[in-house]
């Protein structure tokens, strides 16, 4: 039995004026996997993610998320869908006028009838879950470091216990140790909560260690989709340049080859 598809992108075309960003993009994301979207800058990774989360509309094509066709969805359905996912923006996008705790609590307050006490407990749990100290809840976003902002934003994305998590470059701007811890956290959350994760990333460490499947965007198309082995078989110039340069060869591919030999 093939696994359940959480997201399906079919023949998506995106144009901004005369500029074509996507010209027939196809991919799908299976349940419970960590799915990476790769590509050079300007290849339309962020645009594709924005189309999945209904911030932009594709010019043509169809995107299905958790069973809803987001290119043709009613207001009520859209509102329901929005409660089932969490989004982590590249720079956090925490509401600067609210404290971290209030940021996390906001959706619970708006969308649920939970008591104040229960809400506060939930907020505390989420803060602990992403590895922040309890006192961070009382701070404002401007008082946080880059890494803390990402963690707080992740806690907010997890507030409604979503089934699906979108991450836009989760490890960019973090120090190497922080980035690896963040990777570990994402894997833990996947195991613990059974969520599906879609992430835009450039981080080779993430790609080689936590991403299950990925799509490589280049030349307005998905040039290759699949797990690391499939992707490495591609001879597309971007894949060649990204994965088969001296640095990656030395640091990662040697390791993979060694594993394969065993």
């Amino acid at each position, binding site marked *: 039995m093939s696994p359940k598809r959480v997201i399906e992108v079919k023949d998506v075309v995106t144009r901004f004026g005369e500029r074509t960003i996507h010209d027939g993009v196809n991919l799908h994301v299976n349940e419970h996997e960590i799915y990476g979207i790769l590509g050079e800058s300007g290849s339309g990774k962020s645009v594709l993610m924005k189309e999945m989360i*209904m911030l932009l509309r594709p010019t043509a094509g169809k995107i299905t998320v958790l069973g809803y066709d987001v290119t043709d969805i009613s207001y009520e359905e859209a509102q329901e869908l929005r409660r089932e996912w969490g989004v982590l*923006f590249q720079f956090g996008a925490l509401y*600067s006028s609210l404290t971290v705790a209030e940021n996390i609590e906001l959706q619970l307050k*708006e969308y649920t009838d939970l008591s104040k006490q229960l809400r506060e407990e939930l907020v505390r749990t989420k803060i602990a879950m992403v590895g922040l100290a309890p006192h961070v809840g009382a701070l404002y976003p401007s008082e946080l470091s880059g890494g803390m902002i990402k963690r707080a934003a992740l806690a907010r994305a997890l507030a409604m216990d979503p089934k699906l998590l979108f991450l836009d470059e989760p490890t960019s701007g973090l120090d190497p140790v922080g980035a690896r811890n963040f990777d570990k956290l994402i894997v833990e959350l996947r195991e613990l909560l059974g969520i599906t994760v879609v992430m835009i990333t450039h981080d080779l460490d993430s790609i080689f260690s936590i991403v299950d499947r990925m799509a490589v965007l280049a030349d307005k198309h998905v040039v290759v989709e699949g797990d690391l082995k499939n992707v490495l078989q591609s001879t597309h110039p971007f894949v060649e340049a990204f994965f088969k340069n001296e640095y990656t060869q030395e640091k990662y591919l040697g390791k993979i080859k060694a594993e394969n030999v065993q």
Partner: protein
Amino acid sequence: MNSAYLLYEDHEQYLKLISKGEWTIKTVPQIEKLLQKVPTDRKIIWDVSGVKLFDSAGVLLFIEYLERFQKHTEVKVVGYTPKQQEMYNLLVKSMHESVPPREEHFLESLGKKVVGLYSDFRDFLTFLGETMITAFHVITHPRFFRLKETVYHIYQSGFSALMIIGLTAFLVGMVIAYQGAVQLAKFGADIFIVDTVGISITRELGPMITAIVIAGRSGSAYTAEIGAMKITEEIAAMRTMGFDPYNFLVLPRIVALIIALPILIFFADIVGIFGGMVASGLQLHITFGMFVDRLYEVLEVKHYILGMIKGPVFAFVIAAIGCFRGFKVSDNTESIGLQTTASVVNSIFLVIAFDALFSVIYTELGL
């Protein structure tokens, strides 16, 4: 000619140019002046072995003049070090890759501006449409109304503005009275100062002064707040969480200002007339008692009402433009400034335009 950076020896067949000392960003301007004077009627031998210190600016200068000399005569460069050669290779590449700056034809920029104006107008209509849809939705589903935000904005745009509105209105009232007093005293019509002040403040100046101060104070704040939220992606984050920014950001601001502005106008009317009273007392020796008696006689309620009707209209204009301009902010910090300026300019202009429209309507209706 000699200097610390460049020497040249004149020979019969050639000119020997000797660079020395520091060729760095600090000394380049001086060196350039020297290089300009180098004659190019003979073959040049350029010895750069004496250069002790150089940076990219120094090497760029060297490249530029080398090419310039080469156009007129034969040049031979001697004595360069491998490091200089490396820097030369690096810079010579980037120099020739430069793209000529794009020149925009007058008609092209004019066309762009016209199209820009048109698309601004269309976007504004879209914005108004979205706002109306949200307003309708909230009217039919009152539980979605953001009371807390609305109250907050009433406080921010209304209560906090009392001081500045009061001060402005007081001064305007005084100025009107002083100016009027001089003219009226000539006719011995001193007491008519009460009519002048009372009617002009309640009917025209109170609403307009208040609207202009609020446009500068709150309209700009709305643009900057929403614009900053757009840059930090807070608005995108709201959308992904299902929080409609029109309901969360726009409607509370518009409703708050529609409530707050008439109250501020009422306050401005009182303080403005009081300013006129003080000035009349000082200039024409009309006592407060006389002033109030006369005011009671001549100031019909209709003038006050006609002034107050403008309040909600001005409020809507200011808040709508302020929010609209905020949404127009694009992903750079410069555009916050541009949009905030545009917001204040647009809303002050529209306030005055609407005020003129009101005057025409009132006159036509014989009010």
